[in-house]
């Protein structure tokens, strides 16, 4: 558009910068993945990708919606369990996909309704989401007996559902997807979710959501129903976390640890370290920190929780804006000098 002024130009510049960063990451991944796959496996790569989707869901809810959700793992777990239960009961596992997305969306909508229409402040919101997650964890953990089954699916208590079937080719229940195909599917989902986030944030809905994060009262005084917009973004985040749970269920199997505090904590750490208010940052944060956790896991004498905890502590104290804005700011300060 002509005559857009300097602000638009710099916004375009930033978008281009972010796109370049994304391309760079993709390039590194393309070069690095084959080497990494020797060390781990295609299944691990799929888990990483599923977690990146999960990180993206919280990046949207917390970073742009300003909603402090300490229980994103709840929707992740619900998505996984909904998929597993539906897949075990339905003839074609393809039909389980919409269920795996719908169930956590509805849960998010219900929880969001209580929180946003109850005008609960953000700190209390953190506590409530955390508590709901813990209760789900305790509940699923206690479903060990034979009486806990939904149709053909035993919930299995702390063992989870080891018989979680993988997705099959749509319309062909006899042909389950190979791990490689599920990996490609996961990467596609990540790309789609990223694009969806970008689209949402560019729409009027997304801009109002960001405006509400900036100033709730002003948004209301302009006639926007703050509660509805928050509910909307929270539900989208729940759906995305459910998708991540579905992908996770397809490479491992579902178990109560999906609802655990450790998972909720990790998601927060990915977003915090990657950068609140960015999309790419949390994706990269999720990848880096999982690689770190996996590496620490090979050292018998060090507990991964210790490292994760220290990373979060240091991130809050030292780089509260997160990696992406910090690195981007540093690059921006360096680049003009080099160019001049």
């Amino acid at each position: 558009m002509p005559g857009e002024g300097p602000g638009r130009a710099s916004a375009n510049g930033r978008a281009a910068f972010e796109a370049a960063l994304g391309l760079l990451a993709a390039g590194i991944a393309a070069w690095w993945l084959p080497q990494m796959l020797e060390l781990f496996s295609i299944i691990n790569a799929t888990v990483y990708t599923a977690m990146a989707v999960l990180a993206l869901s919280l990046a949207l809810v917390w970073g742009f919606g300003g909603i402090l959700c300490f229980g994103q793992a709840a929707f992740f777990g619900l998505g996984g369990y909904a998929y597993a239960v539906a897949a075990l009961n339905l003839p074609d596992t393809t039909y389980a996909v919409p269920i795996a997305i719908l169930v956590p969306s509805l849960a998010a909508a219900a929880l969001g309704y209580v929180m946003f229409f109850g005008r609960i402040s953000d700190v209390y919101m953190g506590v409530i989401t955390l508590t709901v997650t813990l209760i789900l964890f305790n509940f699923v953990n206690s479903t060990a007996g034979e009486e806990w089954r939904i149709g053909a699916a035993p919930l299995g208590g702390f063992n989870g559902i080891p018989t979680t079937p993988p997705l099959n080719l749509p319309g062909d229940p006899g042909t389950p997807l190979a791990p490689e195909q599920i990996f490609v599917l996961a990467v596609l989902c990540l790309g789609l979710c990223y694009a969806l986030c970008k689209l949402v944030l560019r729409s009027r809905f997304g801009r109002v959501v960001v405006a509400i994060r900036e100033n709730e009262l002003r948004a209301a005084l302009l006639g926007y129903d703050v509660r509805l917009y928050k509910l909307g973004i929270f539900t989208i985040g729940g759906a995305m976390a459910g998708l991540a749970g579905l992908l996770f269920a397809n490479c491992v199997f579902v178990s109560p640890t999906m609802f655990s505090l450790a998972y909720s904590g990790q998601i927060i750490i990915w977003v915090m370290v990657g950068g609140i208010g960015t999309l790419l940052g949390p994706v990269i944060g999720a990848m880096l920190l999982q690689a770190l956790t996996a590496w620490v896991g090979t050292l018998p004498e060090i507990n991964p929780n210790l490292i994760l905890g220290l990373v979060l502590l240091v991130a809050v104290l030292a780089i509260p804006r997160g990696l992406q804005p910090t690195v981007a700011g540093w690059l921006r300060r360096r680049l003009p000098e080099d160019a001049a």
Partner: protein
Amino acid sequence: MDLAIATGIQALTGIATLLLISLGLAIVFGMMRVINLAHGEFLMLGAYSAILAVQAGVNLWIAMLVVAPLCVGLLGVVVERLVIRRLYGRMVDTMLATWGLSLALIGAVTMIFGNTVSGFSAPLGSVRIGAYSTSGYGLFLIGATVLLLLAVWAVLRFTPAGLIARGTMQNAGMAAALGVPTERVYALSFAAGAAVSGLAGALMAPFSGVLPTMGTAYIAKSFITVITGGAAMLAGTASASVLLGGVNTLGTFATTPVLGEVLMLAVAILLLRLLPQGITGRFFRRAL
């Protein structure tokens, strides 16, 4: 009749437990508006310090009542210095940092002691009530909780330090203007809250078993209790404990322990929907 008494004691134990595990958090939240997500780990460390002291030959009661609060209180001093003080006024960042601390403590303790349950058995044997028997330690726990609550109340109500603390709680800016060293008040409050948490963890140890992740079992309950209680830290936590502990016990009695907890949480969320400021936002407003 005997059944009623036995059930009543059961309910009282549930209420006392809830109050005990929440009090340290309530002190820190009430005084400083800081939500300490490492609270569960403070409880866990209290339990471990008691166990270590007992293993080192210290008398059980001294280990629980003296060593545990002392150790965790000292840890509180360190944590306040290194973390909390840097983040005053940034509630969300404080929550995140203490969550990091919580994970790190779980990791560190797992590395040192392993992911296994240890513990010591409850002293004081059992007490008979007609056809039923109840543990003597449970009765002791109820008594100890009431005493602890009274002690904290008395300190706040009757001592000069308590007056300063109440003043800071009401209006930190005004207290500072009057020459109260608010930084020191906060440091002491945090240490006191940590010490109470350590004591609570040690007292709970015979009931719960001790393992590195035990804090996560308590943290949600204590949070929901403190927040349901609202601004007045003692009256709020006590009334919320009575309500939620009662609901939990009755729910457990009628169904299963897990459903009892689910019911308790549902009641808490419903309460927050009706009283966003917590119980003491509406009732007992002038209480401590």
